[in-house]
């Protein structure tokens, strides 16, 4: 099975000190989460691991072989990337958009086969998008567009998932659905690497965490070792309170925040 490793990896972020070189092994069956404040370099790390950005030093290995020396098409068969931003300059339908996930599997003269269309439709069904199949992607809501991007990666049938904020724009139920899908991918032997903003999603679904500090410092390891209030408070520069719900740790901002007024002026119906 396919594993992705970083060896003495230092990301190339302009005007930033080298910080700690990363030595990660993202193995089949694992769900990694990257946590960090805005601008810590989460997206840059994800792009560097995907081979889309040159590191300052060190290297990324796919199956023990340098990513840069492998053909992009071969890499694309093993590794899918879900981006935070998407360009829909030319309108295309939802089905057409999901079908581009089959691109690395097709030779230049090939047209998509019935099997490719079946895989795309399956991915659409998995993300509850079947009804939107013929809609143009630029007419979708933010959350629907996000699910189309995840369906595209699903149609790509990768063994490694690199996802940048996969729960962006999603409502609560779809956030859970998507995290379940990614977790399920790991359970069936694939590897998943996520940038996340939501500490609690990370605490519930990730088995490994990487904390990325804005100055280039970083620490990583099994989730249980990383979910220490001290480290997380330093990471976000925000006091946190920890509780346990359904057997998973939950973190909420503590202290300092404005307290709800004792006599709130409610408008409309009270719950």
């Amino acid at each position: 099975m396919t594993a992705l490793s970083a060896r003495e990896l230092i990301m190339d972020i302009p005007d930033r000190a080298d910080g700690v070189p990363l030595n990660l092994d993202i193995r089949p069956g694992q769900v990694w989460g990257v946590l960090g404040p805005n601008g810590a370099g989460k997206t840059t790390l994800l792009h560097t691991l995907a081979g889309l950005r040159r590191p300052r030093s060190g290297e990324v290995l796919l199956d023990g072989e340098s990513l840069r020396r492998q053909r992009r098409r071969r890499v694309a068969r093993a590794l899918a990337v879900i981006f935070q931003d998407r360009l829909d300059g030319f309108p295309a339908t939802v089905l057409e958009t999901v079908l581009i996930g089959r691109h690395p599997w097709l030779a230049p003269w090939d047209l998509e086969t019935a099997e490719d269309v079946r895989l795309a439709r399956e991915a659409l069904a998995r993300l509850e998008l079947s009804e939107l199949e013929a809609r143009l992607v630029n007419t979708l809501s933010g959350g629907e567009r996000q699910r189309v991007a995840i369906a595209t990666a699903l149609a790509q049938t990768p063994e490694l998932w690199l996802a940048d904020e996969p729960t962006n724009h999603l409502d609560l139920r779809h956030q859970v659905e998507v995290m379940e899908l990614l977790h399920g991918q790991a359970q069936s032997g694939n590897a998943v690497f996520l940038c996340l903003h939501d500490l609690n999603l990370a605490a519930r679904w990730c088995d490994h965490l990487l904390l990325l500090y804005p100055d280039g410092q970083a620490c990583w390891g099994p989730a249980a070792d990383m979910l220490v209030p001290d480290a997380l408070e330093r990471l976000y520069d925000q006091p946190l309170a920890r509780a346990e719900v359904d057997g998973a740790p939950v973190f909420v901002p503590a202290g300092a925040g404005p307290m709800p007024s004792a006599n709130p002026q409610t408008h409309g119906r009270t719950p």
Partner: protein
Amino acid sequence: MAGADSQLGPVAARVPGVRAPLLAPLLGLTLLAVLSVAVAVAFGSVALSPAELHAVFTGTGEPLHRTLVLELRAPRAFAAFGVGGLLAVAGALMQVLLRNPLADPYVLGLSGGAAVGALASMLAGLGAGIVSGSAFAGAMFSTLLVFGLAHGTGSWTPTRLLLTGVVVASGWSALITFMLAVGPTEQLPGMLYWLMGDLSYAGSPWPTLIALALACLLALPLGRSLNVLARGPLQAAALGVPVRALEWGIYVGASLITALAVTTAGSIGFVGLVVPHMLRLVLGNDQRLILPAAALAGGALLTLADTLARIVIAPEQLPVGVITALLGVPTFLYLLYRSR
């Protein structure tokens, strides 16, 4: 183009992976292309009936008709077809490269460079062959200039390329105006015809037709990669597309075929912008369909426009660019109006 009443219709009906729906519009456009060439050789100062045309092509027609069709009208009709097809394909490619549906083959200043080259050698009183040569040289010079400047210290974004192209183009147009202002009066009509685009001096149609066939053959296997590239360079790279090489290829290829078209017939406007855009409105955005469709529709449009240019004020001729704009503007506005 009746499908324009619903933008969703044709897109939704075309399930990728099934060949027939891809072929149907191409067959229709091929028919249109053949018809356009037939009309072009039949009409002119002397109109020929279908029977007379048939006689000419089977070798039994009157000698006058044979000369008229085989030596005058057919080469010009095929040259028009080649030029129109090249411009439309180049426009479709530039639109993908710049990820901007409003790009055209001239957006990077290519026609301005060609025009400066051509007009300068006209002013110098040089022959048609040298005018063509310097138009080609001017086009390639402008292409390299824009690319070099936009490339700058390494970043190469569509916006930067577009802005550089627009600014360089306005520089060329100042030079063109200057040359028109200082040029001798008797040379002005020739210069203006060149600027509007004119097929009278097109010469042999073969270079453009061969280039068009080559462009389609090269572009077709790249079509799906172009579809992916339209989603942005990062997404394309993540799906296994060699983005740098592909972008370079489009840039160089589209510039070469535009330069060839401009060299053959002057800077004919509108075909490169409007034809791919109209096709996108009607057929969707699959480049595997759009590129050959653009070759056929662009060729047919320019062939018909050139026929009109020959007969509207016969025996005088209009620059064909006037006709493409007069036909293209309302058609385009109508499609745009109906699409939303």
